[in-house]
């Protein structure tokens, strides 16, 4: 009798996945060139998303996570632990909760590595089908974000690397500042259409380019 039921949820071959934005249509006026846009919006679909739970006070847990992910476990809100080249990040979400994002298709291998490295009271939960990542870049991103979230996105309050979960329009989003003018939103699948279109609507006045 096993303790847990985990398995790779991605098919071996053949099935074409659909991102949460597969059906979403762009209805605002857009700018043809990214260079001339105030905001460039791009979806990073199909990434591996894992929710990690455990005790930050347990050194073995922290060491295990670092060993499995090759990144230190952030022990308080922001900054993001991130390796851009490998496409791996770990974000503090709440006192015993982290969001791990890994390249598409590697979520099951990552989960197994974590489980091998961890013991005791912890949990790893795959939520890859439930969320997607929107990248916003360009000079007007901060203005757009101010039209979306009450959270203070001023550089003095939201330095590069910081990540928070907050109110976004009438829903929620995880907001991550990954570079000077580059931000990521982690949004839930069922709200993706609403949030994507809200972001585009808020961006229209600054000139928005959507990377297809």
């Amino acid at each position, binding site marked *: *009798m*096993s*303790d*847990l*039921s985990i*398995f*790779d*949820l*991605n*098919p*071996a*071959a*053949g*099935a*074409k*996945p*659909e*991102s*949460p934005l*597969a*059906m979403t249509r762009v209805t*605002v006026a857009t700018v043809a060139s990214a260079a001339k846009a105030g905001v460039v919006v791009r979806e990073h679909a*199909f990434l591996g998303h894992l*929710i990690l*739970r455990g005790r930050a006070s347990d050194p073995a847990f922290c060491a295990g996570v670092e060993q499995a992910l090759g990144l230190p476990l952030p022990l308080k809100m922001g900054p993001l632990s991130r390796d851009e080249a490998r496409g791996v990040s770990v974000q503090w979400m709440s006192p*015993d909760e982290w969001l791990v994002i890994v390249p598409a298709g590697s979520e099951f291998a990552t989960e197994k590595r974590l489980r091998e490295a961890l013991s005791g*009271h*912890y*949990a790893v*939960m*795959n*939520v*890859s*089908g*439930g*969320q997607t990542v929107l990248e916003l870049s360009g000079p007007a991103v901060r203005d757009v974000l*101010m*039209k979306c*979230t*009450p959270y*203070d996105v*001023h550089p*003095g*309050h939201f330095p590069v690397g910081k990540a928070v979960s907050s109110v976004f*329009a*009438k*829903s929620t989003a995880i907001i991550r500042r990954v570079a000077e003018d580059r931000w990521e939103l982690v949004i*839930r*699948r*069922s*709200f993706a259409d*609403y*949030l994507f*279109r*809200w972001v585009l*609507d*808020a961006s*229209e*006045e600054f*000139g928005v380019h959507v990377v297809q």
Partner: protein
Amino acid sequence: MSQRNRIEQGGRIDRSRPLRFSFNGVGYQGFAGDTLASALLANGVDIVNRSFKYARVRGIVAAGAEEPNAVVQLGATEASQVPNVRATQQALYDGLTAGSTNGWPNVDRDLMGVLGKVGGKFMPPGFYYKTFMSPASMWPKYEKYIRKAAGLGRSPRERDPDIYDHINRHCDVLVVGAGPAGLAAALVAGRAGARVILCDEQEEMGGSLLDSREPIDGRPAADWVAAVLQELGAMPDVLLLPRTTANGYHDHNFVTLHERRTEHLADLAPAQNGRRTVRARMHRVRAGQVILATGTHERPLVYANNDVPGNMIAGAVSAYIHRYAVVPGQRLVLSTSNDHAYRAALDWREAGREVVAIVDARGNPEGDLVAEARKRGIRIITGSAVIETRGSRRVSSALVAKIDLAGFKVSGAVEELACDTVASSGGYSPVVHLAAHTGARPEWRDDVLGFVPGKVKGMIPAGGVNGVMALAEVLADGVEAGCRALMETGMKAAPLRLPEVRRVREGKAAALYQVPHVKPAMRAPKQFVDQQNDVTAAGIELATREGFESIEHVKRYTGMGFGTDQGKLGNINGMAIAARCLGQSIPETGTTVFRPNYTPITFGAVAGRHCGEFFDPRRYTALHAWHVEHGAKFEEVGQWMRPWYFPRGNETMHEAVQRECRAVRENVGILDASTLGKIEIQGKDAREFLNRLYTNAWTKLDVGKARYGLMCKDDGMIMDDGVTACLGENHFHMTTTTGGAAGVLDWMEMWHQTEWPELEVYFNSVTDHWAAMALNGPNARKLLAELTDIDLSKDKFGFMDWREGTVAGVPARVFRISFTGELSYEINVQANHAMHVWKALFEKGEKYGLTPYGTETMHVLRAEKGFVIIGQDTDGSVTPEDLGMQWCVGYKKPFSWIGRRALSRPDTRRTDRKQLVGLKPLDSKLVLDEGAQIVLDKEVKIPMPMVGHVTSSYFSPTLGHSFALALLKGGSQRIGQTVYLPMADGRVHAAEVVSPVFYDPNGERHHV
């Protein structure tokens, strides 16, 4: 068209850019830089409105937000109508179209005006209520016509094509008002590197400096304004917001700023590069410190016929001359209680027009401005006031008399002075409105003769609003406020050189509000206190005589301070009159409070983008596009859009649902069940946690098995239900109702965090991660077998089991659970792969008659089985036993569980509680109304004892008759009885009480 009141030189208008506009259907011309009010005055338009109650002709009184009369209806088209715009705050643009809000058939010949003139004496406060009070039933009819005759502007009847939005901002220092104090404060804060927002409601920043006679650093004050704005504008963390009104000051320094972005440009927001422009924007500001630099409003004096066009406040006269190069008349009489107002007469004289006299209430005025007026040979009548003006459509003369301030009486002969304009000034009221929004009571200061803001944490008043009036002191006060704000923020101020301003010596002002008349107030011509609401001094006197002693009551009885101007001009005068009548001081009388909004704002700005498609988020499943493509009608379930039914051709909803029901019972149907809440539970104490959370037992549920569970609140009432599967010893997959998902997860977290933190268990929502497809019907096994590697045989994969495998090549968990009573497999796959699996099922499913079905068919099928829907068949007052679900309550579980104690109360053990039953209407085609009340006796008259109600009701094609579920008192004992359902239209339906399980009571269909 001539602009006869426009002077050749000066002003801040651009004479090279003439603009056309129309007012009440007449075309005029003004210049860029004009407001609608200044352009009307330039064109000599005296009458801009009819008054609210007496329909008296009214002209422009002020130059800013305090204007009570020039309240116009704006908009060239029906869709662009904006009501109640102050003409003094509306920038002129080419093609502007406006009209009066009052006056029928028109502002010049008004029908109500006749009634107002004849009956004015007989229309005291409360007139309408007193006159039209009986019979009470007729009031709604009277009211309809009374409101039509009075009333302000109207809303558009067509959809507004413009867009509005909200933006969230944070700053260290928010400065409200860009006059001398605000500019100085912003400069100090900005130079220190603070995050500063400076907002001002006017077209241009600068406030009183724009019409000032006093140079700063030896140059025109406006030059200093320009230099400061340029410096502030270059600072990256300073935001300048002109045309932006701080409309509401809320708790914890949350301030809303209403920015009008295009209303100075055109009737509708012009598009830029094909992109929509936001017409108005609400800035939602969280400010560390708020510097209130809102200045003052000049108080007019209250004298007889002070509402005849041509009566203005003194400062407005100066503003029109300096800012707009408009002198709104030929011959001026100034009536004042203070030195400062002398500027109006000096400005008037410098503009080349005649000053007939300055009438000063003080016996011996002295001060620099008085001396200057004397030097220029202007006649000054001391110890006197204008007690009345004459003229019907424009002032033709002013009656001036000596007055006894202390005795409140006219003490000398009356002299009539021919003139066409009377400017008055009774002093300056600090603009305390915003501070009052927070609940802080304004405080009276005798030296200011006005109320100053009460104390608000994090708010620093500066300049005029702080009772500081002389320019040099105002600038210093602004600097000090800036320094204090920085200190509170933990920042350091750099030294700032104060600009040089000549100190103007001013004499002490007299306290004068209502001017005495030779006749008592009740007999004298009307002395208006609040022109917008037609409140007179006599009306306030009457109110106090009738026993309204609280100023709040006086306000409500007379209407003083209501409307768009919120008592900006009249309130202090009204309080002073009430105080005099009550024989007490103004601070004893107190002030009314002000509420948001400071000036009217549009509903568009309130709504922002939260309208139309963005009013509420719509949540979609991974299969939504397929549903749309296949013609589904949708139902909103919470925020989810769920397929309701899938009509084919011209099918009605009823026909489609009947067909879908038969397909499931006879062949196979499929439901998108992705919206069901799903919670993943991991940890060694997961099972124990479930035992405490659910009413039933989980100890013996094996891996590979699933179980239905009921959840109660601590009051023993059902809160949610669902199937939870044991994935591993320490691993469970819980499902909840669609609407209950978030609440259940919060509930679990709360109990875990507060009551049982020792349990080693974690939860997380996986609702969006998994897509769920419920395959139901006798052909379900055959169809699924074509696509899966899972052994579907009855022995290997029984009812309430789950298995892992692939479906259409996609890894899946398949649950053999059923909400229809049919053989059923609920296929769960990672949502990104759901469309592939769904389409594969339809490819293989055609030969089995695979039919998509929606929530309506799901409801019919589950109700036939007597399966309840929490929230439809229950309402928070229903226990498990009320539903006949005793089998789902584990009283023998070793550890208590949520709701157990409440379920042992006598009330929850009663046998006559409302219990779930089935109803079979005697008319087998009749579908009872959901919510219909049940009675036991057909003949009983109203009020009759009601014993229950219908919770679900449908027609079943399978059963061939209609049926319903109901909650009925003592229902389990009434099986076989006939009950009655009286309808609003007088019909009474009859139904037999039956078991709630209508179909396959022994579960033979799904145990196959």
